C-alpha cells in the first residue's frame, strides 16, 4: 500500500491487512473498535495488557471477605513496594488489584513538590473495568466556556454537534437516570433511575426548598435497570445491586468494553484483537503524509514488530496516547507526531476533588435499605450557570448519598464488651456525605514530556508529569467546602464535618486535554472530528482530545466523541480523502 518512513527500523514483517488499527481497549478503544467494525472495516485492536475474558477472569467476583486470603487486605509490604500510587484509588483492594498496574513496573516521574497520581489498568478492557460509571453529558455552557472566558482554546464543536452521538452512546451503553430538564446537565436516553432512600428523598426536598437553583438527583450511571433487546442479545442483564463492580460483573450489568463494545465488535467478524502488544510509536510516512501503522513491543518477550493500516485510532488513555505520540518522531515531526503546534502534552487537566462534607440525618431511625446500590446521587453544577461568581471561573458538582453505617463505626466509637457488641449488631445512624467534582482550567504550564534519561522496560521513555492546582482551582476548592457545609445545614443534618483534604491531581482519574481539539492547527492537535490537523488518517478520541474539562464525569463524552469520529473517518475513507 504505502511504504514506511526512513526512520523505520522494525525488523519483523508487516501486515497490511487491516483497514484500521485501534490502540487501547478501554472505553474509547472499545467504542472505536465497535463503530469501525460495524461500518465494515477490518480492525486490529491492540492492547498493551493481558487478555481478560469476560466472566472467566473475574477471579474475585462474588467472593466474601472470609473467602479471601487476608479477608480482602493486601500484604502491607506488597502495597508499599508495588502499588504505592494505585493504592490511593478508592477502588483498589485485594479484590481488584489484578486490574491495576504494578507501579514498580510502570514508572513515571513528577517534581518533588507536585505529586500526580496516575491510576492505570493495563488489560483488555482497560479502566472500563474499574470506572465509577457516572455518565453525564457536557452542556452548551461547557462547549462555550473557553471562548467566553478566554482560558484554553475554543472547542471546535458545540453541544448540538455531539447531542445525537450522546443519544447513540447512551442507547447502546445503557445509562440509568432521571429526566430533569436542566440546561447545565442535558437529559438523554435513560433507563429507569435507581431509587432514592427515604433520607435522600428528605434531603432532596430540603435542599431544593432552600435553594431554588439547586437540584439533588439520582446519579446517571452506566448500570442496566431495564436492558434493551440489543443489550440482552449481547449477554447483558440488569444490575443485581452487589456494588462490587470493579471486580468484574458476569451479569454484564455495568458498561465495560468486555461486556458491551467488544462483543458487539466481535460479532461483526471484522475484529482482530492482539493483547500484550505495547505500542511504542505511530509510523509516519512522509511521502503520503499519513500514519502508515504502529510499532509494537511485545509485552512479554520485548520483541519488536509493526502493523500497518489505512487508519489509526489512538485510544490508549490520555497520558498513554500522549506518550505514544511524543515518542513518534520523524524528520517532519521531531517533537512528536501531529505536533506542529507544540501543544501536544500541554493543557493537562483532571477534575479537582476530595473536598466535601458529611453529617448525620436525625430522622427515619425505623427505616433501613437493602441491597448495595452501585450508584449514588448527583448535585449538578449551580455556580456560574445563571449568575457570575466573582471568586472563580467555571463550576463544580457533587456526588453523594445516604446510608446507615455498619460495624466499622466501632473503630471510631469508644467501648468494648457486651453492650458494644450489641450496639454494632444494629445499623448506625443515617449518614449523608457529598464530595465535589470541579472543573480545572486548561493551563499550558500543566504538561507532560518524555524523559530524556529514563526508559521503561519496554524501551519507552517514561513520562514526566508536571501538573498542579492553581489560583482558580484553589478558590474553587474553598467554595466546594463552604457550599457543601451550607447545603448540609439546609438539608437538616447534624454533626456536620467538612473534609478539606484535596485530592492530588490525577487521583480523580479524569486526566485529559494533552492533545486538544481546536479550530486552528497552530494551537491545537486535533480538528472537530478528532482528526489530527497534521496527519489526516490519524484520529485521537480518548480524554487527550478534551479542550476543556467541564465538571462532569467525562467517559460518556469520550464514547460520543469516539463514535462521531469513527463515523466521520469511515466516510472520509470511502470518499477517498484519507
Amino acid at each position, binding site marked *: 500500500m504505502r511504504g514506511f518512513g526512513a526512520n523505520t527500523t522494525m525488523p519483523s514483517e508487516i501486515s497490511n491487512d487491516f483497514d484500521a488499527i485501534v490502540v487501547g481497549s478501554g472505553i474509547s478503544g472499545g467504542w472505536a473498535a465497535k463503530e469501525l467494525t460495524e461500518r465494515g472495516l477490518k480492525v486490529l485492536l491492540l492492547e498493551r495488557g493481558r487478555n481478560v475474558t469476560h*466472566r472467566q477472569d473475574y477471579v474475585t467476583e462474588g467472593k466474601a471477605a472470609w473467602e479471601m486470603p487476608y479477608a480482602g487486605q493486601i500484604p502491607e509490604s506488597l502495597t508499599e513496594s508495588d502499588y504505592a500510587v494505585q493504592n490511593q484509588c478508592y477502588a483498589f483492594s485485594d479484590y481488584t488489584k489484578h486490574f491495576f498496574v504494578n507501579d514498580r513496573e510502570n514508572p513515571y516521574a513528577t517534581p518533588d513538590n507536585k505529586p500526580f497520581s496516575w491510576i492505570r489498568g493495563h488489560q483488555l478492557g482497560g479502566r472500563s473495568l474499574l470506572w465509577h460509571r457516572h455518565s453525564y453529558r457536557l452542556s452548551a455552557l461547557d462547549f462555550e466556556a473557553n471562548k467566553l472566558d478566554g482560558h484554553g482554546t475554543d472547542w471546535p464543536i458545540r453541544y448540538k454537534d455531539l447531542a445525537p452521538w450522546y443519544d447513540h452512546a447512551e442507547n447502546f451503553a445503557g445509562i440509568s437516570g432521571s429526566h430533569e430538564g436542566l440546561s447545565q446537565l442535558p437529559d438523554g436516553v435513560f433507563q429507569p433511575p435507581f431509587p432514592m432512600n427515604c433520607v435522600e428523598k428528605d434531603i432532596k426536598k430540603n435542599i431544593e426548598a432552600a435553594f431554588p437553583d439547586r437540584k439533588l438527583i439520582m446519579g446517571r450511571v452506566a448500570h442496566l435497570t431495564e436492558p434493551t433487546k440489543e443489550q440482552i442479545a449481547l449477554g447483558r442483564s440488569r444490575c443485581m445491586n452487589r456494588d462490587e463492580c470493579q471486580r468484574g460483573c*458476569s451479569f454484564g450489568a455495568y458498561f465495560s468494553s468486555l461486556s458491551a463494545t467488544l462483543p458487539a465488535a466481535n460479532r461483526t467478524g471484522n475484529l482482530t484483537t492482539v493483547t500484550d502488544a505495547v505500542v511504542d510509536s505511530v509510523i509516519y510516512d512522509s511521502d503520503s503524509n499519513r500514519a502508515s501503522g504502529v510499532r509494537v513491543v511485545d509485552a512479554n518477550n520485548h520483541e519488536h514488530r509493526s502493523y500497518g493500516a489505512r487508519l489509526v485510532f489512538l485510544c490508549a488513555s490520555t497520558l498513554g496516547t500522549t506518550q505514544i505520540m511524543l515518542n513518534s518522531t520523524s524528520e517532519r515531526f521531531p517533537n512528536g507526531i501531529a505536533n506542529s503546534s507544540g501543544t501536544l502534552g500541554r493543557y493537562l487537566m483532571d477534575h479537582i476533588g476530595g473536598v466535601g462534607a458529611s453529617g448525620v440525618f436525625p430522622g427515619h431511625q425505623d427505616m433501613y435499605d437493602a441491597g448495595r446500590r452501585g450508584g449514588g446521587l448527583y448535585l449538578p453544577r449551580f455556580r456560574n450557570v445563571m449568575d457570575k461568581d466573582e471568586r472563580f471561573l467555571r463550576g463544580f458538582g457533587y456526588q453523594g448519598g445516604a446510608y446507615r453505617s455498619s460495624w466499622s463505626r466501632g473503630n471510631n466509637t469508644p467501648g468494648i464488651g457486651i453492650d458494644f457488641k450489641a450496639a454494632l449488631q444494629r445499623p448506625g445512624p443515617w449518614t449523608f456525605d457529598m464530595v465535589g467534582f470541579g472543573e480545572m482550567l486548561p493551563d499550558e504550564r500543566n504538561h507532560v514530556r518524555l524523559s530524556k534519561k529514563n526508559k521503561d522496560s519496554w524501551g519507552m521513555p517514561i513520562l514526566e508529569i508536571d501538573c498542579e492546582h492553581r489560583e482558580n482551582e484553589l478558590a474553587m476548592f474553598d467554595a466546594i467546602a463552604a457550599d457543601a457545609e451550607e447545603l448540609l445545614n439546609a438539608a437538616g443534618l447534624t454533626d456536620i464535618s467538612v473534609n478539606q483534604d484535596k485530592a492530588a491531581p490525577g487521583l480523580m482519574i479524569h486526566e485529559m486535554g494533552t492533545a486538544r481539539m481546536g479550530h486552528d492547527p497552530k494551537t491545537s492537535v486535533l480538528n472537530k472530528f478528532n482528526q489530527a490537523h497534521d496527519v489526516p488518517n490519524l484520529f485521537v478520541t480518548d480524554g487527550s482530545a478534551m479542550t476543556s474539562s467541564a465538571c462532569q464525569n467525562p467517559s460518556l463524552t469520550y464514547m460520543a466523541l469516539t463514535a462521531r469520529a469513527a463515523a466521520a473517518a469511515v466516510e472520509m475513507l470511502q470518499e477517498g480523502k484519507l
Partner: protein
Amino acid sequence: MADNRTHLTRRTAIKGAVALLGGTLTTAQLGLLGNSFAAIAEDASPRFLCPKQFTMLSRIADLIIPETDTAGALGVGAPHFIDMMLADWASPQRQAEYVAGLDSIDVRARDAGASSFLASTTEQQMVLLRALDNEFFAEHSTDPFFGVLKKMVLFAYYSSEIGATVELRFQRIPGDYLPCVPMADDSHAWFWSQYNYAL
C-alpha cells in the same frame, strides 16, 4: 429471622447463590472454595506471636467481642486469624508495633498491681482495657496501639463468615435495591466487603 440466619450454612449459601445466577456461573467461578478462616485449625500453634502474647491477644479479643447469644471473637477464630495476618500480611513495622503494644499492656497491668495481664481478674482486665480505650479516644492521645488492636479485632470478627452472616446480615447477590424497608426491633446491620480499608 435470626434463627434462619443461624442455620444458614455454607452449603445453603452456595446453593442459593448459584440458583440465583440461573446456573450461569460455576461454584469455582464464584470463588467459594477457599476459606481463610476455616483454613486455620483452632488448636494450631501461633505462627507469629509467642504463646504468652497469643494468649493475651485471645483474652483481649474475647473481652472486646465476647460470646453472647451469638459467637464472639474466639468463636470465629479471630486470634488465629490475627496471628496469621501478623505473620503473612503485616509489614515489619506493624509486626513490631504488635509485639511492643502487647508488652505495653502487660506493663500497664503490672503497674496496676497485678503480676501480669493474664494473671489479673476479668474485672481488672476490663478496667484496664476500658482505660486504654478511653485514652485512645482522648483528645491528646499519644499511644494509638489499643485503637489499632481494637480495629483489627473488629475486622477479624465481622469479616468472618459467622460475623458477617449470623451476627450481621449478608447478601451475596441482593438482586434489588430496596430503598426504604421498615426495621424490626432485632434488624441486624448489613455486612459488605470494604474496599481499600486501612487496618
